[in-house]
């Protein structure tokens, strides 16, 4: 009899605790980005708090760096949030962030503002963003201009014939909007002329780069894009021609020397030369481990 009462009590407790656990979920509605911060201070070689803010393209990269770095240095506190390069730069000028992630260089007006408020922005290239445009190996087209790519991915050109190829519908494949590459390609190619332009409604969004690679490899009508890491002999990478330069094939080398047009450097900007804990953090980012993460997230490592 006593046993059964205990059993009942246990069941009640269990259900109550489950209830409480379920209740806890809606509470996570805070309007902030999840920040990979370490909350268990234990003695380690260094300590400090770094606030990182800026580019949405880089927010996953910065979070991955922060997570791995914190795992190695439990005494460090790194808070990462996105919002965009502009927001990161504004935060740097307001001194509300220590590191600003920017996927574009500072504009002149931002430099002027920095000067006025006594801030010396120092930008370091921490990775590069380079995207290959690929077609089926049997496709007769070998190069396209940025303008043509903008028209294809914006849904303006829908037949290969208009580009001098076969008379067939273009099957346009893009990364889905959970990808920084999606945003980069949109900003750099689709919005080449018109800053309000969006991907065309005929574009197919696939969840992974591998999915695009596989579909391009077997579909002669397909065109797609992805990070350089996914290139293989089953697809043909197109040479891309900018408004000024010649057509250039994508490779780590052409991305690093800036001759390939669908690429850009990714910066971290600080107020003055980074010192102390921050200096060590940058050394780690630019080192083997940090650059390995760059590669694993489909960006181009700087070396």
């Amino acid at each position, binding site marked *: 009899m006593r046993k059964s009462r205990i059993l009942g009590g246990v069941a009640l407790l269990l259900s109550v605790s489950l209830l409480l656990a379920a209740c806890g979920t*809606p509470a996570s509605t805070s309007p902030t980005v999840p920040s990979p911060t370490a909350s268990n201070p234990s003695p380690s070689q260094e300590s400090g708090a770094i606030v990182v803010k800026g580019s949405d393209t880089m927010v996953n990269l910065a979070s991955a760096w922060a997570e791995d770095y914190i795992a190695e240095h439990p005494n460090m506190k790194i808070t990462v949030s996105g919002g965009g390069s502009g927001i990161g730069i504004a935060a740097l000028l307001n001194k509300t962030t220590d590191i600003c992630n920017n996927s574009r260089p500072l504009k002149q007006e931002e430099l002027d503002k920095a000067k006025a408020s006594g801030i010396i922005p120092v930008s370091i290239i921490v990775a590069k963003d380079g995207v290959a445009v690929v077609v089926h190996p049997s496709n007769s087209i070998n190069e396209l201009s940025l303008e043509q790519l903008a028209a294809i991915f914006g849904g303006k050109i829908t037949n290969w014939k208009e580009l001098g190829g076969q008379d067939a519908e273009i099957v346009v494949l893009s990364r889905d909007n959970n990808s920084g590459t999606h945003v980069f390609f949109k900003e750099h190619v689709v919005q080449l002329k018109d800053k309000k332009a969006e991907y065309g409604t005929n574009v197919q969004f696939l969840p992974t780069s591998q*999915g695009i690679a596989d579909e391009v490899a077997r579909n002669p009508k397909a065109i797609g894009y992805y990070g350089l890491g996914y290139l293989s002999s089953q697809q043909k990478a197109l040479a891309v021609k900018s408004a000024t330069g010649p057509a250039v094939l994508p490779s780590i080398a052409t991305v690093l020397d800036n001759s390939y047009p669908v690429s850009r450097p990714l910066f971290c900007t600080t107020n003055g030369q980074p010192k102390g804990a921050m200096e060590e953090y940058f050394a780690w980012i630019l080192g083997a481990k940090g650059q390995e993460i760059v590669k694993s997230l489909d960006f181009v490592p700087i070396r």
Partner: protein
Amino acid sequence: MPEATSKSMKIAPPGSLEAQKEGRSLEEGHGQALESPSMREPRPLRSRPKWDRERPVRMVLAAAGWLTVVILALIMIMLFVEGLPIFTVTNPFSFLFSSQWYPVSDPPVFGILSFIIGSLMITATALVIAIPLGIGAAAFLAEIAPPPVREAIKPIIELLSGIPSIVLGFVGFLLLAPAIQRIFNLDSGLNGLTAGILLAFMCLPTIVSISEDALSAVPREYKEASLALGATRWQTIYRVLIPAARPGIVASVMLGMGRAIGETMTVLMVSGGRLAIPSFITDPMSAMTGRIAIEINNAVFGGLQYQALFAIGIVLFLITFAINLVADLVLEKQRRRYA
């Protein structure tokens, strides 16, 4: 007051479990409303040891039952708390009836019409394939197949439901999509039809298994009477057994449909992911589930995109709720007609 007493008396005879419960809850609810001795009577009749032994079991069972209700309620609350705020930014009409979905643009635009249509088209395709196949297989297993064949096939069909959806999606992506592209001479094999066929495979086991149970449960006399009247086997299945088993079959189809409309991974991998409103089933399209799955990881907690994705969840929830409600009403109506 006397009315309440007589009502509860009518529902359950004194001494039954229902009467005890009813009496107690009414007592708690209305204070001294129930002083009628007839309601008090059953208590002394219970033998104490038995009552004590069953009490914890009853509590556990009641807790389990209530827990599911509470969990469902909490999920609903969470969905609404997280999703509804989007309607302060985007009005519900344009959210539901616009097909512009640019969540990472500035300013973001949220319109989910093409995903609703995509989900419905893919689910409908799956059902068009799965219902005849499923009921046919069920009739075969229940009526035609010799017992050893049935014993072999039924577990195999049920095993089909154990295939993880990502595996099915992978098979669909690598094998079915190129085949569909070739057969129908399409620009891309990643489209609604491919997704629908794969989903048909996913809801087939549910339909076959439950329909077969329903058909087997039809009293033997129905079948014997039909055959005795000179009906052929086919006529018996078609005119007698299937109508008699209809509630079970409808339930199986509804469960299968629930599985199809809620399926995420397979659809995400093979449906093609086009954001435009699909005009035909062989167009590439997006489903609501896939949208949520792919974007939620990237959405800022509490941000607009996050809220919009939860709002898609609300729409999905309401659609499945409506399906279940309609199914229940249909079944109830039939039950009444046959009762």
